[in-house]
């Protein structure tokens, strides 16, 4: 066990102070220290995108960052995407509390095993904010940073279109 550094950051709206080893990956920090296991690790090499989270509003691959690099930052993980209205921390099954991207994926069946899903959603949130009416090309391009082995991507593309539509209106 080597030296540790103290970091202070906000995760899903909550402030948190932790001392961590300098080489601890942000993905491991989120998963094993904060028990936010919705952020998945599929390749440990920046290829699959499953570990994507928002860092100050931008999507980053948490397997390519050290936790100490997130010092002072605001992080949103998949667990922070829905806003349960009743404060229970658990979104209501009627979709009302889901982020529009989550709701669109649920409706358009943009997932199968679900392992790639959190990372894809965390990429799409800022993407759709910046591109409210994306072309199919653009959608496929942004998705091509993520691997999904189950769906063949077709329903994911559909879900993105549906989400964009919902977010515009």
């Amino acid at each position, binding site marked *: *066990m080597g030296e540790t550094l103290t970091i202070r950051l906000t995760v899903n709206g909550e402030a948190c102070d932790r001392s961590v080893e300098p080489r601890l990956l942000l993905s491991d920090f989120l*998963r094993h220290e904060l*028990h*936010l*296991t*919705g*952020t*998945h*690790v*599929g*390749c*440990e*090499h920046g*290829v*699959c995108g*499953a570990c994507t989270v928002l860092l100050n509003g931008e999507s980053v691959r948490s397997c390519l960052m050290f936790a100490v690099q997130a010092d002072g930052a605001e992080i949103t*993980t*998949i*667990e922070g*995407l*829905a806003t349960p209205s009743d404060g229970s921390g*658990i*979104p209501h*099954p009627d979709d009302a509390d*889901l982020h529009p991207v*989550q709701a669109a*994926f*649920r*409706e358009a*069946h943009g*997932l*199968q*095993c*679900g*392992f*790639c*899903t*959190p990372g894809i*959603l965390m990429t799409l949130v800022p993407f759709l904010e910046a591109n409210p009416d994306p072309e199919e090309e653009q*959608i*496929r*391009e942004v*998705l*091509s*940073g*993520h*691997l*999904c*082995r*189950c*769906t*063949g*991507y*077709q*329903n*994911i*593309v559909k879900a993105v279109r549906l989400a964009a539509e919902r977010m515009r209106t």
Partner: protein
Amino acid sequence: MKRVEGLSKLTGRELYVDDLPVDGFLWGATVRSPAARGRIRGIRFDDSVDWSEFTVVDHRDIPGTNAIFLIEEDQPVLAHGRVRHLHEPVLLLAHPRREELRRAVEAVHVDVDAEPPVLDFRLTPDRERIQYGDDNVLKRLRIEKGEVERALAQAPHVIEGVYETGAQEHVYLETQGMLAWEEDGVITIAGSMQCPYYIVEAFEHALGRTPDRIRIIQAATGGGFGGKEEFPSGIALHAALLALKAGRPVKLIYDRSEDLAVTTKRHPSRVRHRTGVDGDGKLLGQDIEVVLDGGAYVTLSPVVLSRSIIHAAGPYACDHVRIDGRAMFTNSPPFGAFRGFGAPQSLFACERHMDRIAAELGIDPVEIRKINLIRDGDSTATGQVIADGADRVQVLDRALDLADYYERRTAHAGFNAAEPTRRRGIGLATFFHGAGFTGSGELFLDSEVHVAGLPDGRIEVRTANVEMGQGTLTVFTSLVCDRLGVPAEAVTIAPADTSLVPNSGPTVASRTVMVVGGLLEKASDDLRTRTGLPADADGRAIREAIREWHRSHPGEPLIGKAKYEQPEHIHWDDETYRGDAYGAYAWGAYVADVEVDLRTFAVSVRDFVAVQEVGRVLHETLARGQIQGGVVQALGWALLEECKWRDGAMENAQLTNYVIPTAGDVPPIRVEFLESPYPHGARGAKGIGELPFDGVAPAVANAVAGATGTDPASVPLTPETVMDLILRQRPPAGSLT
């Protein structure tokens, strides 16, 4: 109906094995063989590590038989004395900290006196390389119908071809992983798996325990595709041995490069065809040899070979057929179950060969298929008479129609004549896939399901079949809702936990909906009967009757049950390999439209049409999702995914150099279903999960052939392969141009 577990997957609350909360656990790791073959001379532990901090397990810690129980018992849980493939597990370590563990794995040295390995399944091994029987053949199977030699001798044309397919890694996005702990004398596993009861059996043998002291729980599983059929038994045993020795929970999770390097892959194949045809292209005799690379242990290769040869002659009627199959021993990590289970390999050869025959005879690839496709009343290679009411020519016509096949073919000819650097082509494949276990397999599985009525009037479905993305929970829920007339909220699915659910068989072979779903319908009926209600009772009455039953039988369980019974029409002879190989077949016709760039030799798929007859579609969106996902995974096998080998194992073991399709690589996939209900499947359904894998590679290769005037004989068609084909191009005699 929305996906039952969709909400938890979309909000990050779904718990895969590495997400399970557990206190005071150790991380596990595996020390592996550094050589493809040899005798273990010794194992050295570096002094730089304080080994007293570690739990160390080797073969001496195995209380039962040192074998992973499957068809044979030849694969050790941990190598003892000798190793038979690179990366074979030799020793296990556990430690509270992952970093230390990684260093410790490097500090163990397995010294091996190397012996000459077999690294190419296509070559006849010399004496010093024989390691299985007297010829390294793991399994030999033969199908014989009519008199093939006579038919070939009399045929006006005999056309030959040799076709090869490469290995493929599943790349389920969640790697293999298991968590093990002992609780009240019961060894318990939670992990990523398709077949909880396979692990129970493996534990009975290797741990020498009775099933009541074994509990296997499926955690949420991030994709399987066959990769989590047999392989998990070994890693679960490893985790359990460490947990038993350490007296603490142990988590054994492979990282991606370990997963790619050591786990099972699709069997590489070589298939030879010698086919007699008349001038119209009518098949007169098919002589086929299928050779698969089995790897270093028997594992599932005999049954993969079986499915491979049963599908090798294609969905065609031919009176004289001989198919010889061999699975070969090599010093590679064992090849294993993967979506399609041997059928994609032999169907690639068959469908590529049909186009070659058409080209040599100067007839249309559509026509040669139409002449030969099985009509009701015709029989398959095993002599199974097909009379399912499905119209296979109609499936093909629908695909051609949807793809604008003839228009595009004409347009491509014009395009290719005008374009200096690009070539377009359109290709097709017709194929079939038998659902469920082969032959008497389902009988042998003896599956049982329960549908329980709970005291509060809810209904609980209890099976060992797992959700791994394909939609099991959703389809099971909807089947029971429909059968009993109750709303979805009234139905829950019990976790696939062997302490709670009966053995309804493995989640493989496209059997879950067709076979297990059918049993759920019967068990639902049984539940209703037990409450004393007639078949026409509505859902409200059934739920009230369940509550009432519990009031009068306090503390007793109310369980509707069903066990598999073989439909009367199925007759199969394992000795002669004749008869009804499968209860039902799904039929497909796929069309691929490709463009080949003559500067980069890259193939891009412009459009893909997938038409299939699947009995009955139970959930349109989920069914489409299965087809689309299968097509894309198969596009990877056809064009991109290439395992590079070193000493028999995968060398390019990272997702940076083993490339799978992204959203940017794949075309829109247009899916259409035709329905001709199968009376013994759930609501008429036949299997669907594997079917899409079979038709993709040949359709794509046939399209590449059409585009470039070459005669591809292998996949993957990487740019290097396509370049070779084009540069040494000699147009085959009489080819269509």
